[in-house]
């Protein structure tokens, strides 16, 4: 396949791919009618899509450095937007977000604002300038702008800490979905997930990841939107849910007060009988339920973290020009917006279909025995994601007697709302696509930093391209394997570790990156101090709060990036001003970065 031709034919290629996927869904629906078992449909969906990604990965194999590191810098704007959206939306966004909104309401939606608002910072402060720079990795920018191996090494350390925290969560998510869909034990499923991730990235590096991520975006967005629209129409809530669910939101508030939300509380003994990880509805759906500072501090951390996470930033190194890098950020956010604006709607529809006694699907107020006899209840109860118990012994299910896992909102709602099983299979494939695409980007970000910045730039600058790319692949494999091994231990939940990753990235990288472009006086000692002290103080604060420390300014273990980044900012400015100003060559380099035209600062193959 000739490359130039492939780029020109992208809309056609992915058009055919999308059409083929829709046909596949219809075929599965027909097979379901013909009596194919639910289990088999799930296996088909996950296996079929994963094989396609692996095939794309194989087609994109390469032995050239700029294709491996930055996809040859020829990814068109809109497609880079889709790839970034897939790179960005992880298992957490796909599987856990609607659940978080369902249980925590307004306070949780700070994450929606933070995970989108961050892109304004990416577009205006960083992406176009780093693209002009022409670097392969984020530490490549830090190392060249500030000069010296110490700065480069510090950037690699921050990148690795943040991305590795994130990637274990993603491999965990691929394992969860693979184990449910393929019906294999979690410990094995994690390595099945890892194998799929490596198939997409090992042969073709960034080029392969780019084209698989576009394919994964298409699967995940269809898998997310189709059920939302279907359920909304089936319930008669409105054909375009995003604009039409105001009555449903109001109805939930009415039902909440009818069912005594917040007035009827469970005793500690009752709650102890609820399986771990499941929760009941304790917060109002749409009410403002948190203090402004709590909301804002969480949003700020997610925004600054977005602008510092290397796997996102490096997607903008693959566009053909500075101009397209800027526009591409807009497209990325547009594609992300499609899913994020649907998550609250899914949470609303899911909650109402369970709560409303006027709907056939409503279970609150029904007899406990009836609910326990429902097929879907038995399935999800077995999967340890649902639980009911007659605490007050009246034989009727009350709102405070129903418990659900966060993942169930996305995974189980289609079944609860009475959609055919084919939709549940589709949702599993979508979740798999979301978790895989993010894991790919993260594993590649770490291994590229290690192979390019540590091995090639520091250890062996004379290495030939072939040797560099072999080292890159070995590292990719090792990092993936290490991530899977930790994921198999199941230490933390998916969402908690994702939020930590943002805080780590923000603590160490936000100000060194931004000031590298916007403050000429920033120098190497300042940047090193900023990165290391930021990361250390943020981590120290996290450990302190985790071990029962009181904390200050209302900063919790989810927002420790505020402490880290402030220390980073102050130490970077103080140390920079106390030491020598950067030399004239560096100053000229910064001037050069600030104008879009002309050559990149680093040569095409460096």
């Amino acid at each position, binding site marked *: 396949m000739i490359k130039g031709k492939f780029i020109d034919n992208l809309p056609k290629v992915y058009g055919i791919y999308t059409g083929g996927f829709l046909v596949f869904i219809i075929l599965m629906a027909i097979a379901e009618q013909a009596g194919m078992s639910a289990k088999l449909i799930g296996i088909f969906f996950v296996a079929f899509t994963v094989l396609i990604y692996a095939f794309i990965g194989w087609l994109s194999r390469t032995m050239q450095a700029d294709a491996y590191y930055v996809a040859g810098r020829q990814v068109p704007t809109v497609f880079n937007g889709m790839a970034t959206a897939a790179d960005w939306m992880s298992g957490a966004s796909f599987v856990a977000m609607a659940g978080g909104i369902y249980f925590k309401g307004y306070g949780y939606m700070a994450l929606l604002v933070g995970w989108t608002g961050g892109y304004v910072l990416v577009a205006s402060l960083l992406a176009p300038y780093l693209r002009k720079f022409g670097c392969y990795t984020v530490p490549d920018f830090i190392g060249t702008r500030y000069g010296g191996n110490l700065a480069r090494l510090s950037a690699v350390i921050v990148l690795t800490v943040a991305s590795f925290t994130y990637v274990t969560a993603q491999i965990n998510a691929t394992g969860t979905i693979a184990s449910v869909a393929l019906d294999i034990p979690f410990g094995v499923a994690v390595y099945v997930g890892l194998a799929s991730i490596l198939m997409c990235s090992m042969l073709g590096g960034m080029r392969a990841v780019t084209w698989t991520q576009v394919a994964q975006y298409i699967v995940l967005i269809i898998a997310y939107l189709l059920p939302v629209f279907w359920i909304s129409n089936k319930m008669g809530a409105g054909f375009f849910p995003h604009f039409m669910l105001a009555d449903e939101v109001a109805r939930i508030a009415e039902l909440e007060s009818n069912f005594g939300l917040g007035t009827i509380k469970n005793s500690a003994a009752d709650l102890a009988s609820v399986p771990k990880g499941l929760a009941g509805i304790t917060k109002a759906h749409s009410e403002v339920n948190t203090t402004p500072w709590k909301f804002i501090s969480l949003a700020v951390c997610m925004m600054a973290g977005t602008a510092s996470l290397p796997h996102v930033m490096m997607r903008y190194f693959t566009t053909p*020009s500075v101009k397209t890098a800027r526009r591409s950020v807009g497209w990325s956010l547009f594609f992300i917006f499609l899913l994020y604006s649907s998550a609250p709607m899914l949470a609303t529809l899911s909650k109402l279909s369970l709560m409303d006694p006027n709907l056939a699907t409503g279970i609150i107020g029904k007899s406990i025995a009836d609910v326990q006899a429902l097929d879907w209840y038995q399935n999800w109860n077995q999967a340890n994601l649902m639980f009911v118990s007659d605490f007050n012994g009246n034989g009727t299910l009350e709102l405070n007697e129903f418990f659900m896992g966060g993942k169930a909102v996305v995974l189980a709602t289609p079944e609860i709302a009475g959609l055919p099983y084919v939709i549940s299979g589709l949702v599993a494939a979508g979740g798999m696509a979301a978790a895989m695409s993010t894991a790919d980007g993260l594993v590649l970000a770490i291994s590229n930093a290690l192979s390019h910045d540590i091995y090639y730039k520091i250890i062996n600058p004379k290495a030939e391209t072939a040797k560099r790319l072999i080292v890159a692949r070995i590292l990719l494999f090792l990092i993936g394997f290490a991530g899977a091994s930790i994921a198999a231990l199941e230490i933390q939940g998916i969402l908690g570790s994702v939020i930590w990753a943002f805080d780590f990235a923000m603590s160490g990288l936000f100000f060194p990156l931004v000031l590298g472009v916007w403050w000429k006086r920033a120098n190497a000692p300042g940047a090193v101090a900023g990165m290391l002290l930021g990361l250390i103080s943020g981590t120290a604060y996290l450990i302190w709060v985790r071990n029962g420390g009181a904390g200050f300014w209302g900063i919790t273990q989810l927002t420790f990036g505020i402490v880290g980044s402030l220390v980073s900012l102050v130490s970077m400015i103080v140390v920079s001003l106390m030491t020598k100003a950067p030399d004239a060559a560096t100053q000229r380099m910064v001037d050069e970065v600030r104008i879009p035209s002309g050559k990149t600062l680093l040569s095409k193959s460096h």
Partner: protein
Amino acid sequence: MSKQAQHWEKTRNHLFITLAIWFIFSIGIFFFGAEMEASNFRPLGYPLSYYMTCQGSLGIFVILIFWFANRQEKIDEEFGYTEREGD
């Protein structure tokens, strides 16, 4: 002032305007969550606080980035810093 310094000044001012709008919709309005909830202005019938967190701010960010990119391109053009095709 050199051409490059002028270009950078315009770029910086453009950044400040962009960040000001960003600040209002990502941070500013959420100081007033309770006031927004009580407001009679209900877009599409949703409570204002709810609407802004699920669609309002998010949509504004999308538009803001495209507006930012367009205007920055005009600034670059004005000073002859636009990239040539195939650069």
